[in-house]
């Protein structure tokens, strides 16, 4: 081994097709895109109304997706936030019980930030698994929402402002959709371009490495949970304004739907892998599916079965897993065709 100037360890140059394949392989959103494409095609064929009434479809996507966007920030760090739905409910009630609208909105959003901080405190400072800590928070906040609302829906003092809020701003774009888009852009830029957000991937992918590299892991966890809490509260505010009342048991379908959106979008629950774009795609797929089913008037139990099957399909078709399953089926099949030749072949040289 004489003196070398360089050492080549990786693969060589790639063809164009190789580069394309490489780029695709590096992305995490594949399944979400495929699912969305199928759903869009089916919707286009069976219920074109999904597209003509696109503001409704967008509204549904925003309803499902907003919370999922915040949640993704937490998931990227390998954490979970089960308290999002309760945060949504509690902040909505906070908004409604405060007579002054502006003050109410501020208080509601602060509630979200506070919840996020408490979640992060439990996870980062006390050092508790986020699944458990936020499960506690789920119950606690639901209780808080019930207690401060006196266990009944609270009407907004200024209901007209709420109704005005629900009206389209530009074309069919309602504030909800606009806020959703803005939040998407903000978080997307944050985790892909901003140093702090980019480091979420490091915290999720290898916390020890992140710590060793001088990344303030705890502070990142605080940021992530506060994003999640804030976005959930924002969703609570939007819902309350649009409906002109706050429901203390709101969001019963939000938690699971937002998890489903994040996971269909290719976010890895153990952290470090995934993207905000993926979550958007996941929310899109779910939202279009729901609207299609509602529009075509399918009976609710059948809808449920449908959504369940789609979810099951989405989650069992991770390309890597599928490949592994297929090849083990193949080798299991070949194992049955046993070669029964006795050990009589000559001792041929083991290598040539």
């Amino acid at each position: 081994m004489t003196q070398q100037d360089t050492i080549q360890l990786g693969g060589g140059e790639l063809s164009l097709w190789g580069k394309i394949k490489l780029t695709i392989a590096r992305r995490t959103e594949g399944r979400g895109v495929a699912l969305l494409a199928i759903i869009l095609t089916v919707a286009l064929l069976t219920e074109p109304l999904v597209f003509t009434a696109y503001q409704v479809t967008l509204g549904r996507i925003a309803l499902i997706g907003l919370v999922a966007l915040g949640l993704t920030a937490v998931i990227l760090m390998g954490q979970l936030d089960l308290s999002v739905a309760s945060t949504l409910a509690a902040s909505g009630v906070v908004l409604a019980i405060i007579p002054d609208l502006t003050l109410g909105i501020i208080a509601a959003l602060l509630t979200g930030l506070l919840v996020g901080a408490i979640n992060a405190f439990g996870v980062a400072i006390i050092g508790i698994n986020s699944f458990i800590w936020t499960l506690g928070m789920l119950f606690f906040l639901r209780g808080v929402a019930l207690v401060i609302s006196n266990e009944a829906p609270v009407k907004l003092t200024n209901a007209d402002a709420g109704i005005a809020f629900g009206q389209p701003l530009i074309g069919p774009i309602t504030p909800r959709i606009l806020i959703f888009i803005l939040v998407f852009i903000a978080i997307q830029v944050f985790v892909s371009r901003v140093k702090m957000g980019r480091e979420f991937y490091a915290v999720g992918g290898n916390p020890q490495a992140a710590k060793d590299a001088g990344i303030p892991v705890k502070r990142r966890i605080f940021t992530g949970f506060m994003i999640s809490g804030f976005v959930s509260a924002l969703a609570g505010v939007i819902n309350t304004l649009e409906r002109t009342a706050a429901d203390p048991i709101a969001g019963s379908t939000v938690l699971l739907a937002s998890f489903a959106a994040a996971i269909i979008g290719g976010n890895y629950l153990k952290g470090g892998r995934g993207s905000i774009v993926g979550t958007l795609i996941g929310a899109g797929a779910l939202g279009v599916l729901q609207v299609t089913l509602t529009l075509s008037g399918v009976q609710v139990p059948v809808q449920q079965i449908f959504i369940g099957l789609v979810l099951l399909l989405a989650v069992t078709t991770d390309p890597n897993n599928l490949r592994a399953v297929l090849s083990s089926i193949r080798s299991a099949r070949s194992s049955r065709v046993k070669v029964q030749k006795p050990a009589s072949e000559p001792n041929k040289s083991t290598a040539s």
Partner: protein
Amino acid sequence: MAAVVEAKNITKAFGGVKAVDDVTVSVEAGEIHAVVGENGAGKSTLMRILSGIEFPDSGQVMVEGKEIENSAKDSIDAGISLVHQELSLVPEMTVAENIYLGGFPTSAGFTKRKEMKKFAQETLDEIGVQVDIDERISRLSVALRQFVEIARAIARKPKVLILDEPTASLTPAETDYLLSMLERLAKQGLAIIYISHRIPEVFRLCHNVTILRDGKLVYVSEIKKTTPQEVINQMVGRELKLDLESRRDAKPGDVVLSAVGIKAPGVNDVDLEVRAGEIVGLGGLVGAGRTELIRAIIGADNKTAGNVHITVDGKRQQITSYMSAMRNGVAYVPEERRVDGLAMTMSVTDNVYLPNRKDLAASGVINPAKAAKVAKELADRVGLRPPEIKREAGQYSGGNQQKIVIAKWLHKRPSFVVLDEPTRGVDVGAKAEIHRLVKELADQGTAVLVVSSDLPELLELSDVIHVVRDGKIMGTLDGAKADEKQVMGLAAGEKLVEA
């Protein structure tokens, strides 16, 4: 010349055990300083303290005479850069991002990606490593990851570079390259602390050596003034009669394993035979596909083509899956023991019980007394220290963990044992013991297949050596006569000179 970095009277205990006990080390600019010691001697802990990751119970770290605060960031800023023993990269981030982890160049909080990539490329060019900087770490080989980790350390423009067993997963060629690189860097005035279990490396590269034993500093010397024998003696605390080089007399019997036409990702049509009582070694560079080959043979990963048969007591069985391999007496000591080999938070007993449970409890109901008895016997047989079978596997040092992995398989009297890098990151004492165990197995008539990147080990153990390159066997050597040059020649793609 003044010391660039100085660790003064460092002490650190983990729950009563002193991992580092009043150790003082200092390194000057341009000096390469070796720190050696057995597994668990406290080397890594000391380095983690130096680089601000671990808090010492007492003592201080000085850089250029100034005491530095104990935080990862401060240490990095002060110019201490650590290449971790356990790889410390983020799998889903790109090479460039990993190189700048924690220190992305930014403007107003936004990462400057172009700049980052440019710097990363420059750093890689500087150390002469070619790799796509946009590739994700998870898709790189272990060796490449190691070099990325080194690139990261260097990108921080350190005054002191600490490398904790950087060559453990490198082939000789890569090691060679790394060592010359380090020499070059030292000449440019960098202070280097170098940790390795490979004594020859230390003697080739380093100027001074510090030896730790049980957390205490026991020996400091200029390399020129000591000998490998002396260093090893100091490490183990007494004189070691070197019989690492000893070979056994092989008496191969019938063919036990025969693999024909094996193809799998990274494996390209390989035929292989191993006989009873024979140790077959697989040599080659990292990334040659040896791990893939053996995993395909025993069914741990799926193969795309080929047949594998195992003959035990005259009965010839086809191996189609890992399960069928196990049923036919295959034992597998995997490359990555933390991930594949052990359940770290389970006790030694439980780890030993895992592959033997059908044997020890045919009815499916566990008999704890019997399990403990077997575990105890096996722990004694492999020389586990301390032999506390209720202890969690993760509480043992690397070498002892490896002994547990081997012990798991001994109860069943395997007919065919496969060991992948059995002594990677293992200290000399434990290494010798593992070698003894492997030879003992072969002497008892077991067929053994060993993958090793450690050439002396390969030459010492193997009766036959196959050298693998690009997923193919490039040549076969007689273990008794082969030398390092021949193996390396084949591995690197040179023609086999008839021995």
